[in-house]
């Protein structure tokens, strides 16, 4: 068997493995859903922005951000992170077990805000006189980000009362 033939047979053997890996990766990405942000300005010259980012990408990406960088970027939120990240994580986890429905609805003259749950996704919809904004975030991602924030939070200062 020549080198060329050997190379071809290795490639042929690797192709199914690559296809399976791609399928699994695709299934994971599909299963985690996507963060969708759409902003539509009203009026004749209104601009529109539509953004779709796979949640798996965000979830994987945050793990590449060193904890110290986050602490450096926002040192003053250390206490808040330590206090509220577990709450956010518990809320996201529990919301995944809740039935679909509208959680918060605010209606006023010229403005409407709605936060709802649909199929494990948190949907924030804002409709004002100037623009319509819609953000959808999979709850699994919220839980994952909250867990990361909790881990990244700086330790409490010495002598501080135990909070948990």
């Amino acid at each position, binding site marked *: 068997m020549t080198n060329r033939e050997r190379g071809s047979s290795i490639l042929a053997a690797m192709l199914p493995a690559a296809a399976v890996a791609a399928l699994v990766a695709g299934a994971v990405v599909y299963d985690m859903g996507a963060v969708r942000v759409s902003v539509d300005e009203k009026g004749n010259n209104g601009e529109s922005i539509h953004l779709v980012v796979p949640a798996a990408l965000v979830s994987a990406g945050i793990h590449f951000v060193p904890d110290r960088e986050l602490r450096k970027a926002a040192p003053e939120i250390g206490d808040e992170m330590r206090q509220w990240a577990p709450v956010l994580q518990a*809320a996201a986890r529990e919301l995944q077990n809740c039935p679909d429905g509208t*959680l918060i609805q605010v209606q006023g003259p010229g403005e409407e805000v709605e936060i709802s749950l649909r199929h494990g996704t948190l949907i924030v919809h804002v409709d004002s006189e100037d623009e319509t904004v819609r953000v959808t975030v999979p709850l699994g991602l919220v839980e994952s980000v909250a867990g990361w924030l909790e881990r990244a939070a700086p330790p409490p200062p010495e002598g501080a009362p135990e909070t948990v």
Partner: protein
Amino acid sequence: MKVLTVLGILVLATGLALAAPADKWLHVSVVDGKGGKAETVRVNIPLSFAEKVLPAIQVDKLHNGKVKIEECDMNGLNLWAILEAVRDTRDGEFVTVEAKDGNVRVAKSKGNLLVKVRDGKKGDQKVDVQVPMPVLEALLSGEKNELDLAAAVRALGAHGDTLLVSVNDEGSTVRVWVDSRNESE
């Protein structure tokens, strides 16, 4: 044989229905203003969600779903003692205040603590609060000077549909209630 099968299925279905009660929802509805300029806020929260999330909050005096009340004496009134007294007393009217521009009534009736406030010259400002006694008992089930909110939420979930708070003012209404629906009204 068929009758036995049908009976068996009925018994099983009843057991399942009792074992898995429908999740209760806490609703808050605020309507401010009238007509086209009215602003409305509606909040719907599953009680199971509140029950699980409350213990995760560790802020100030709220820890593990319990609120510490260090200062129970409020203008000479010992809130703790009053709540305990209400819990242990039979049905009846505890407080009745009748003034020129308003009335206040605090009573215990049919397993509920009732607070009724009528204010304004025509009594057009109304506040009604109704707390089921099991909820009050759960609230007081913690240590002294501590209100167990998580236990109260649990008790609320086990209780039937309840209108907890109703406020009617000249231009606004507030309602807080619990039922099995996941949407308000």
